[in-house]
Each structure stands twice: as C-alpha cells, then as structure tokens.
C-alpha cells in the first residue's frame, strides 16, 4: 500500500463516483492479452495435451534422466546468473546513486545497449572475449575462463547473462538506492559503526526489496533464456526454452512441448508473483533523490575504488561492443568503409537481402507500431495495477508472463488460433508489432507504476472539487505528471522492438525483414563481405539504440524510474 492513498482513503471512496473507473482500464489490456496471448497459447497447449491423452508414450522422454537434468540446469544457471549479475551491479548502483561524474549518462547508456541487442549479435561480440589476441581475451585465457574446452559453454552462458541483464539490476537497485536518505547510514556511522557494519546493518536491509526485485527479474529472464543458450551452450547445456523449441520445431512432439511450456510458465509465474510483491515495496514514495556528490569530491579510497569499478565495467561491457564496430571497419583485416557503403546496396538483387538501410526502415516502422500499442496498454495496465485491488494483485504477475513465454509455442498458437475473422491475422505483418508489444508493454507498466504512486492524491481531489469531471482530472493531473515516465516507457518499447528477434522469427510473416533479421541472414552465409556487412548493420543498430537511450537519460533526470 502506498502512503498517500492510505491517508486519504475515506475521501477517495466518497469521491469514487467522480473518479475515472480505474478497474475498468484493465479491459483493453485484458482484451489484447486474451486475443493475442491467452487464446493462442490455450489453443496450442490444449492441442498438445489432447494429443498426450491419446498417446501417452509421447511424454515418455520425461521419465528419462535427460529432462529432469534440463530442468535442474535451467534453474541453477538462472540462480547463479542472477547472483553474479547482482554482485556485479551492486557497487555500480551505489556509485550511480550517490555520485555524479563526467560521462555518467554515457556510461548508463552504454551498459544498457546489450539488453536490447539481438542475441546473434551479442554472441558474435562475445566471441571476441574468447579471442586470446585481444587484451580482454588474453586476460580471460590467463584466468582459464574462456578456453576452447569443455566448460566454455557454461562460462559463456553465465557471462552473457550478466552482460545482458547488468543494466536491469543496475537501474532497479540504483534508482531505489538514490532515494534512500543517506542520513540513516550517517547516524549509524556517527554511533561508531564501521562503513561495512553500517552497510550491513542499515543500508542492506533497506535495499533488500530492490535487490530481491532485481534479482528475481534477472532470474526470470535467465530461466527463459533461449538465444544465448542455443548459440553459446554447445551441446552440453540446454534449457527448458531450448528444449521446447526443439520438441516443437524439430521433433514435432507437441505434447512434450506443451508440458515443458507449462512447467516453464508455472515457474516464471511463481517468480513473477514474488517479484511483483518486492517491486511494490520498492515503489513506496521515499525521499526524492538527494545528496549526489560529485565523484571528484569523494574521499580518496572510495574515489579510487569507484573509478576502478567504472573502468572495469566499461572495459568488460563496452569492449565487445566496440570490437564489433571495429570489425565492421576492418573487413579483410584492412581499414575500409566498404561495409558502410554496402548498407545502401543490395548486390544480390534479392527479394530477401534488402539493403540494410531498407531493413532499418522496416524496423523503425515496426517499432513505431509496437510502441503505439505498448504505450496505451502499459498506461491502462499501470493505472489498473495501481488500484492494488485483489484482482490487480492477481493479474499483475500474469501481465508480465508474455515476456517469458516460449516464442515458438506462441508462434504455433497464432497459426492455429488466429485463422478466422475477426482475428484472421495469422499471416499478417501486424502480428510482428503485436508480438513486440506483448514483450514491451510490461516495461511501460513498470516505468509508469512508480510515477503513478508519486502523483499526490490531493491534486486530484482539488481538481475534482473545482468541478473537473473524472476524465478531465485524469487528463489534466495524472497525464502531465506521467508524461515523463510514459515517454521513458515508450522509448523502452521502441528500442526493445528494434532489437527483437527471438519472437519475430517464429511468426509467419510477409517478407519485410527487420534489421536483426538482416544481420542474421548476412551471418548465414560464408564470405568476408557478409560478415563485414553484418557487423556494420549491428553497429548501426547499436548507434540507434544508443541514441534512444541518450534521449532516455535526458528525460530520466529528476525522475524515479524503476528500470
């Protein structure tokens, strides 16, 4: 429960008639999810389970030692990945929350890029880490991490998960930490506690909901990890999501795919439930961001530690991205801009190999359409979840499920379910932005929710006392105060759609390739030109995402974002 609502609860219910029907705002969201998520998923799962009833032997592989091992591995790699991510992000969250330094926005932007890059690009970038000719690679090979051996797949999976999710943990914990008043830690220090004691007994307990929320979110993403495991896991490591894909797309054992999908849904749903509780505790209005000290004025030891940390993170997270850009400039080991000239060309005259710039045009259009859907959906969902009604508490974690549902399962569901009017959309291009919106709107929800809690109820009261109708109140009070958060959510949706690949690929769609697909196609054929062009397109995508995030950092100033 957040405080302002509690304090004025009586007046609110008195004015209930004059308030907009917040609960009903769930309706468009529910309709959208029902049509494009629940219904297709239901159809494909019930088809699978129906076949299982007819022929139980299809489920026999579940009894082998293989599947329990896959479930176990999926679980523990997600746990380890989240712990590693939290460990890497915690010092950064402190530095970002308490200090200002030159290039802070740039730093935050750069660390966020991996989160939205297509996996196939990240895997390519990551390979440079395993390359002993580079500075980082030689360090890694000295530590024995990325050797060309048996365990490499596991290390690469864990490292890639940290790489992907680092910014998520950094943002959730950092923005919460920034709102913790330093006075509490200071008084502990005054009472004679060492910095470590003060951190352990005061700061850490206060931070714990944010840490738990971040950790669980990372766990959920890693639990349903697909591309990373498929591309980097070799043969030894497989997750539930990869097995679902294999059973559905290759073996065509839909019963087994359905059962595995249900296991995955149950686990992520359970984790989401707990996560949304912690998230709720994080959105309590706390003191606004204060006491940001320029890093140059911090004491010597913490300053050096912070500098060392920032340098190390920049190196580890940014170096692979830079190496991609460098490779695009050095096709055939010699400096050249040929790959960039090629961005406007289609030398093969092919229907499918459109010039990367044309693919970028498609990507931008899809991203725009996805954002136009995700923003109203996210706003409605946030307003609804904010009521904290029983229904809202039940539905909140369910709203997040599309983000982690197996893409191939949903793609098959679209084929079976959306084959009749009014939803005869199964082979329409519209499904692509719809799938992107399914993944993106929870991000709008999560960015708008904290801002919604910060809207003082007195303002609404005042407006309605002055005679404004419920929609007028919403439009003149809530909406302007939410505009920054909405913009933030919109940018997130846009960038997520730009980089989306995993869900798009399993939708039957007309040939309008997006930039990630163009990259994927370029990497599907041998030849140095193909590689250079893929690297150039990937660089283009990174620059595009970076620009969006720099804009995001601009409008995030003085905002309490949770992502």
């Amino acid at each position, binding site marked *: 429960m957040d405080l302002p609502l509690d304090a004025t609860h009586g007046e609110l219910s008195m004015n209930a008639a004059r308030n907009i029907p917040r609960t009903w705002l769930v309706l468009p969201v529910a309709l959208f999810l029902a049509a494009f998520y629940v219904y297709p998923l239901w159809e494909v799962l019930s088809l699978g389970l129906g076949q299982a009833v007819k022929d139980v032997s299809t489920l026999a592989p579940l009894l082998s030692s293989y599947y329990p091992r896959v479930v176990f591995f999926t679980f523990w790699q997600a746990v380890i990945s989240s712990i590693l991510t939290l460990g890497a992000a915690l010092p950064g969250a402190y530095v970002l929350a308490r200090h200002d330094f030159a290039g802070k926005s740039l730093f935050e932007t750069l660390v966020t890029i991996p989160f939205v890059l297509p996996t196939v690009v990240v895997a390519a970038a990551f390979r440079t880490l395993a390359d002993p000719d580079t500075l980082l690679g030689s360090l890694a090979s000295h530590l024995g991490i990325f050797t060309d051996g048996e365990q490499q797949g596991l290390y690469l999976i864990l490292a890639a998960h940290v790489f992907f999710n680092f910014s998520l943990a950094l943002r959730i914990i950092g923005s919460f930490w920034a709102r913790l008043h330093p006075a509490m830690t200071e008084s502990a220090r005054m009472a004679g506690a060492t910095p470590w004691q003060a951190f352990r007994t005061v700061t850490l307990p206060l931070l714990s909901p944010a840490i738990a929320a971040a950790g669980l979110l990372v766990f959920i993403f890693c639990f349903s990890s697909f591309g990373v495991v498929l591309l980097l896991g070799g043969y030894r490591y497989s997750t539930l999501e990869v097995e679902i894909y294999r059973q559905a797309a290759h073996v065509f054992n839909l019963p087994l795919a359905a059962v595995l999908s249900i296991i995955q849904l149950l686990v992520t749903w359970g984790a989401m439930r707990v996560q949304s509780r912690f998230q709720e505790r994080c959105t309590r209005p706390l003191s606004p961001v204060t006491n940001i000290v320029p890093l140059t004025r911090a004491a010597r030891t913490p300053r050096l530690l912070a500098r060392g940390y920032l340098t190390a993170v920049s190196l580890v997270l940014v170096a692979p991205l830079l190496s991609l850009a460098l490779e695009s400039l050095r096709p055939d080991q010699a400096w050249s801009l040929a790959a960039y000239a090629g961005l406007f060309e289609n030398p093969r005259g*092919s229907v499918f190999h459109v010039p990367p710039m044309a693919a970028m045009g498609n990507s931008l259009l899809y991203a725009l359409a996805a954002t136009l859907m995700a923003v109203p959906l996210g706003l409605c969902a946030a307003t609804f979840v904010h009521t904290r009604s029983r229904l809202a508490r039940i539905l909140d974690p369910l709203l997040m499920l599309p983000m982690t549902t197996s893409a191939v399962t949903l793609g098959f569901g679209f084929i079976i379910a959306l084959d009749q009017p009014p939803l005869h959309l199964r082979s329409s291009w519209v499904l692509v932005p719809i799938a992107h919106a399914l993944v993106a709107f929870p991000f709008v929800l999560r960015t708008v929710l904290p801002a919604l809690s910060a809207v003082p109820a007195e303002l609404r009261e005042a407006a309605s006392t002055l005679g404004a109708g419920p929609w007028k109140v919403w439009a003149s009070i809530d909406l302007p105060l939410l505009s920054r958060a909405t913009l933030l959510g919109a940018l997130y949706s846009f960038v997520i759609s730009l980089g989306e690949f995993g869900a798009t690929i399993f939708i039957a769609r007309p040939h309008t390739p997006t930039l990630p697909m163009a990259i994927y196609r370029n990497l599907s054929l041998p030849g140095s030109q193909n590689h250079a062009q893929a690297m150039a397109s990937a660089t283009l995508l990174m620059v595009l995402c970076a620009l969006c995030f720099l804009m995001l950092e601009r409008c995030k100033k003085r905002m309490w974002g949770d992502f």
Partner: protein
Amino acid sequence: MKHLFALLVLTLTLCHGALASAGSELTVMTHDSFSMSQDVLNRFETQSGITVRILQSGDAGAALNQAILAKNSPLADVFYGVDNTFLSRAMKAGIFEPYAPAGIDAVPGALLLDPENRLVPVDFGDVCLNYDLGWFTAKNLNPPSSLEDLTKPEYKDLLVVQNPATSSPGLAFLLATIGHFGEDGAFSFWQRLKDNGVLVTGGWKDAYWGHFTAASKGKRPIVVSYATSPAAEVHFGKDPQAPAPTAAVLTAGSAFRQIEFAGVLKGAKNPEAARKFMDFLLSPDFQEDIPLQMFVFPANTRAKLPEVFMKHARQADTPAQVSPADIDASREAWISRWTQLMVN
C-alpha cells in the same frame, strides 16, 4: 484510451484487408533461408499475371510444422523447403497434392524421393567438412581427406562441428557418419572424435564465425559446412578472382546430401497458380538463380551454373545414404544417443 486502441486495431485490420485484396494472388510459405532475385520474381509475375506473396517462418522444421498445423485451413498455396530429413513427416501429414511440374524430366532420379510427386526436388547441397587451406599450408600438414582421418592424432583439437539436436548441418553430418559407418560404427567413431578433441557448437554461425580459422580468429581449421561454402567465400570475398581460401572434403561417403522439396498444399485457394509456380520453380529462370541466392545446386541438370560455382563449388559423387524413412523413425533416438555419448 480505449477509443485510441480500438481505432488502432481498426486501422491495422483495414491495412491488412487492403493488402490482402489483390488480383490473382499466390501465397508461398517457406523458411528463413529462402531467397530469390527480385528480377526473376518480377518476370514470373508479369508473365503469369499472378501476384506472389511469400511468407517466412523460422527454420525448415518450424515452417513445415506450421504448415502441418494449418492443415485444415492452409496458410499458403505452395510450400517450399521440406528437406529429406523432414520428408517422411510431410508425407505422413498428407498436406501435399501430387503434381509433376514441367521440367521434372531433367531432374536426376536420385533426387526424386517421392514417386507420387507430392514433393518435388528443387535444389540440393552437400554438408561436408571444410578446411582452411592457408592454415594447413602454414603448418605444413596434409588436410584430412576422409572422415576416418579426423580421429588421427595429427588432427587432434582441429575440428568444430554443430550440435545435431539444434542445427541442421549438425544433424546432416551425424547422418553422414551413420550412412558411412552404420549406426554402431558411427557412434564408436564419435567416441573417437570426442577423444580426439572435437568441439561442438550450438549452430553453424557460431562454428563458422566463432571458431573456424578461415573466417574468424578461432582455433579450428576444420569445420562442418557446405560443399558450396568455398564458392561463397570467393563470391563474398574481397577479390572475385582470388583462389578459394577454403576447400571441401568430398570423398566417398563423407558428405550428406540435403535435398529441398516443394509442393502444392492440399486445400490451396489458388491451385492453378500454385501449379504454374511449381513449373516456374523447375524452369531454367528460377533454377539458374538458385546458386548465387541460396548457395546450393539446382535440381534441374539443364540449368547453367555461374562461373564461381563452376570454379569453386563441388558435388559429392557418392554421398552417404540414409533414407528419409529411417531418418524419420530414428532421428530422436540417434540424437539422444549422440547427446548421451558426448555428455558422459
């Protein structure tokens, strides 16, 4: 907000409707690796008066399974891209109508796997070992010339292959070993490969761009790829006159031939246009477009090959043999046996 949303849905639906209502329209469903020249497609459209709409959906397996799921109300008129590892599944599902396109007489008998012509071969490619010529010259070592060579000590830690569970060339290579050594022989061969330090990646991209010395800073000079990969290396390389940096191993029984089929879907809305498109697929115009678009060989022997193919692409004379029925029956068992062996 609700109005805005309703408006959006309405607009999208209208756009969709407008796009779908063309004249004589033909829908072709295929996988993500399909490609053809815009010119060639335009010529077909002008000559036939048919507008072609192409749907793509995931890899070959995912696309075929979607076509099977849509059996009762087909998504398309023609399906392109059933390979011989999925042929039996497609036949059992009964989703194709028999049709023998003009030009089928110029297709070698070895490619015609369905006597009823429900599925007709359009292209083929051999999955085989590729090696980095420069690496072997620099090390003054003879490149491998057969599968058996790979287990010799001088080739220790030099090979990278793909996981047959997740990769189509990976599965093809496993099938090559099964066709060549027989099932039990193949798995004892894999045990020896494992002892000799074979590296397994999830897919072709990671193997080729991540580990193969000729294409990356990796450490493995032997990779599982296609017999046409050296041609692609030259075609997409800096200098089209340069010699190929890589070469393929195509000795008897060391390659697996992937054959791609197309067919008219049962319940097609426009069966007549579908049959015209099938004729077009085997016509020289399309067949001669295949090599430089998809880097595989055309099924029609009358199709002329481009120069880079004549020079650098080769075909296996005697590829390893495994029948589509055997593949369909044992695919999962072979993959689990392989995984068991490699993990333990």
